[in-house]
């Protein structure tokens, strides 16, 4: 029963044509990310996500990167459970003062070479939470940031594009 179910469900969702612009953008991203990742990191880029006080909207879209439509692992990008296993910290939120120390410690626990990607409007400069007594405002005020991905929240496609930009940035540096 389960096998049939699995086949019919998976089959159906994979063959159904997705909207054309999305599909082509994704295909284009797939090739680019793949080539860049392979060149620099041998198909392996480990990402540790850190919520530094976000509203959880960004987390929902970062989660979506792992679903069947975006399937981030096909690019060699994967989420890991510890900063000690990570190459990239993906940081969201306006960095609440209550999270600043935890973010610093997570950064310090990540081995070099490492890159920080600030995700979402809040992570750039505090966004709509800027000026609050409880927020530092902007990830770069706490740890050095290599790339910002804008959006509130950024869509999974924006996130993929951002990770591609990071890879190009890294290659240029190296």
């Amino acid at each position, binding site marked *: *029963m*389960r096998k049939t*179910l*699995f086949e*019919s*469900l998976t089959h*159906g*969702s994979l063959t159904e044509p997705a909207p054309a612009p999305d599909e082509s953008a994704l295909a284009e991203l797939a090739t680019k990310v793949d080539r860049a990742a392979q060149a620099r990191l041998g198909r392996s880029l480990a990402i540790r*996500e*850190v*919520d*530094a*006080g*976000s*509203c*959880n*909207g*960004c*987390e*929902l*879209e*970062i*989660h*979506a990167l*792992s*679903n*069947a*439509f975006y399937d981030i692992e096909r690019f060699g990008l994967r*989420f890991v*459970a*510890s*900063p000690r296993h990570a190459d990239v910290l993906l940081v969201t*939120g*306006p960095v*609440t*003062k*209550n*999270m*600043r*120390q*935890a973010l610093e*410690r*997570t950064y310090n626990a990540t081995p070099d070479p490492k890159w920080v990607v600030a995700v979402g409007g809040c992570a750039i400069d505090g966004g*709509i*939470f800027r*000026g*609050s*007594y*409880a*927020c530092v405002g902007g990830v770069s005020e706490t740890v050095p940031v290599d790339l910002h991905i804008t959006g*509130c*929240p950024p*869509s999974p496609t924006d996130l993929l594009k951002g990770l591609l930009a990071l890879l190009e940035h890294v290659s240029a540096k190296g």
Partner: protein
Amino acid sequence: MGILDSIPHVNAVPSHRPWPRVVVTEAGWQAAIDRLVEGGLTLLGLWGEPTAVHMAMLDAGSAEIAVVTYECTAGAFPSVASRHPPALRLERTIHDLFGLVPAVADDLRPWLDHDVWGKSHPLSGRNASRDVRPYQFLPSEGEALHQVAVGPVHAGIIEPGHFRFTANGEHVVRLEQRLGYTHKGIESLMQGASLEAAAKLANRTSGDSAVAYAFAFARAAEAALDIEVPRRATYLRALMAELERLANHFGDIGAICNDASFALMHAQTGILRERTLRAADAAFGHRLMMDVVVPGGLARDIAPDGIPALRTLLAEIKKVFPLLIELYDNTASLQDRTVTTGIVKADYARQFGAGGYVGRASGRNFDARRTLAYAPYDLLSFEVPVLEAGDVNARVWIRIREVEQSVELIAQILDLMEPGEIRSAPPAGRGACEGLALTEAFRGDVMAWLRLDGDLRVERCHLRDASWFQWPLLETAIEGNIIADFPLCNKSFNCSYSGADL
């Protein structure tokens, strides 16, 4: 008998709508607490201002709500939590933010304040300072007990919080939560904000419930201003609220199964969730539908492509979801993890007024959409599933049944909706006014209370997430379970960190 009949009060605040707010002395405040302790009334919220505390209560039988206000002339108020434990974290928060002292409190440890804001009692309006002491977790004593500290940075892609387990071998003896890590100071940012700016903040109080928060905030503002919203706008609001519920329930059902190592379900519900978000994007121009619901109605109408996109979505869900239910129901190894795990006792669910699937899986028959029947739910037909078992399995089944109901609700709305206006203009020149509203988010009721000044600016706004009354029950649900089942229990609650930390 009215909700306030047995609560002596000094005077009512005339500009508070749609339910009454009354000022009470200590006698009235204690009488209100008596009703909460007896179980006649349910605590909906407890929040502060620089010199007053407000308590909102619900009479579920008559669907009446009232707010009682105690003026803290001496900087103190009679403690609610010492007699009614669900108020504890709310009371500690009032002390943190406003410096008002609950008398006599059994537990006055800081809650949101982690000693890093650079000031104490930030909303008190004065330069105060408090004694800074290391945070003490509650003691658990006994031979062979050990502690496991988890967070604030967790292994998964989730929000930050700290869990302190005391375990005897594998079995959890006590779990104590330490939250507040995502405290952004939303209440202070609300002060003086325009309706538009404040609505944006409400949308981002808990991103997974953006529509529910915007809906509650807008309804509170509309109640305060006494304005009607066009019928089409109320239908579209409910349409978005049900889409949000679908997306979250799909995500949760899959994530719960994934935490029991059943990844197949996670992959399948992930597809349904993504399809739901894409349909939402096609219909309203934003995957999480942020900033569409605004005071007075909607910022924009549904896109012409939206309706066929939604009909396609509903057809897809009707085709696929029954197979997934069957899969869940027929997988014994999965049921082995979810049945009898993490039981929330019915008494606790009732006492804490636990909303959403946490309450309804433990026999609490409350859903703001039905009990309060706010527009347009008074015109729609739907069922509210209730179960008694209170375990992870029951919380999964409540979600499954609610998915089915949301699909039906969206279909009804698409059939009933007619062309028309989508926004009423706020009236000019109305004086200071106050409003209160509840909406049913996917995880339970969201309460919004606000006071507007004569220039349509927010003077004070308090938003209360359902998680306030669910988090403490997670502490009880894990007791006696093994630590390895904590992720499963936690996911079956899926409480909001950001929504409760504010």
